[in-house]
């Protein structure tokens, strides 16, 4: 068993109205960031857990996302695995998109 730190990004699904994101985009435009085309505001969750290896940690986290952390009706999730010491997993973010 090793200790893992897994980050989960949860964002409103595309096509779902995100008034918070729209408001932030409007503020960015006001500040002169004319290049901004879209902003969506979501949630960032860090789960620390024990698992046999990284794929086991990710599998468990995916199950957590499907059951509780994200609501598939309105949200997408993305899992980014980290090493026990907190660095991102080798080879860049191991993105396991939960989009459909």
């Amino acid at each position, binding site marked *: 068993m090793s200790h893992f730190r897994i980050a989960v990004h949860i964002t409103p699904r595309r096509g779902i109205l995100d*008034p918070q994101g729209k408001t932030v985009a409007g503020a960015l435009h006001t500040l002169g960031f004319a290049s901004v085309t879209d902003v969506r505001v979501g949630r960032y969750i860090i789960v620390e857990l024990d698992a046999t290896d990284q794929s086991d940690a990710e599998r468990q986290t995916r199950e957590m996302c499907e059951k509780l952390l994200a609501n598939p009706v309105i949200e997408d999730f993305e899992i980014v695995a980290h090493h026990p010491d907190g660095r991102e997993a080798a080879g860049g973010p191991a993105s396991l998109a939960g989009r459909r």
Partner: protein
Amino acid sequence: MKFGIVVFPGSNSDYDTYHAVVDQLGEEAVYLWHKDHDLQNSDVIVLPGGFSYGDYLRAGAIARFSPIMSDVVAFAKKGGPVIGICNGFQIACEAGLLPGALLRNESLKYICEFVRLRVTSTDTIFSNRYEAGATALMPISHGDGRYTADSETVDRLEGEGRVVFRYLGGPADADEWWSPNGSMRAIAGIVNEQGNVLGMMPHPERAVDPLLGSDDGLAIFESLLSRVGV
């Protein structure tokens, strides 16, 4: 008839529901602690309003895993009547008893005010005491009431007469749909496919006495009496 009112940590409309059922309707009500597995032979289950688990993660997301919810879901699957009001509606959606989800109000503001509703379906066990096309005055009090589902689901809800309440009027009280919270097609309340689970954001239990500003909510509880039988 016995109403079982589920009490979650953070429920705040449980007492209002008790008052509506016992004092105004003259029926029996019991509180059901969320950690129990006992519905106490209730004829109707109410998931009351409030802020169960502080609305952490998403409104209703954690309450749906409370021990009693497995019994409530089993009760509903057997055709038992369930009413989810406000936070109870959010919990019912999270639990899969109703389609869709309730998101942050479009204005991003908490809304607490009386709204006018159109009773768009009087052919349910929850609304048969309303006259066809009736309007009803009830308060809303929520930060996350924007009903959202994919358009296919909403089309189905409308086509099958499962939209029971719609918001009406607006600042100028125009006699047309209007979403105070950005709900798709001004949806305020829906029933499931079998018609035995009602979810609604407005609070009928807070509109049961003219002293409160309206008693238009009482008909929901009365409707149940005439259909379910005591």
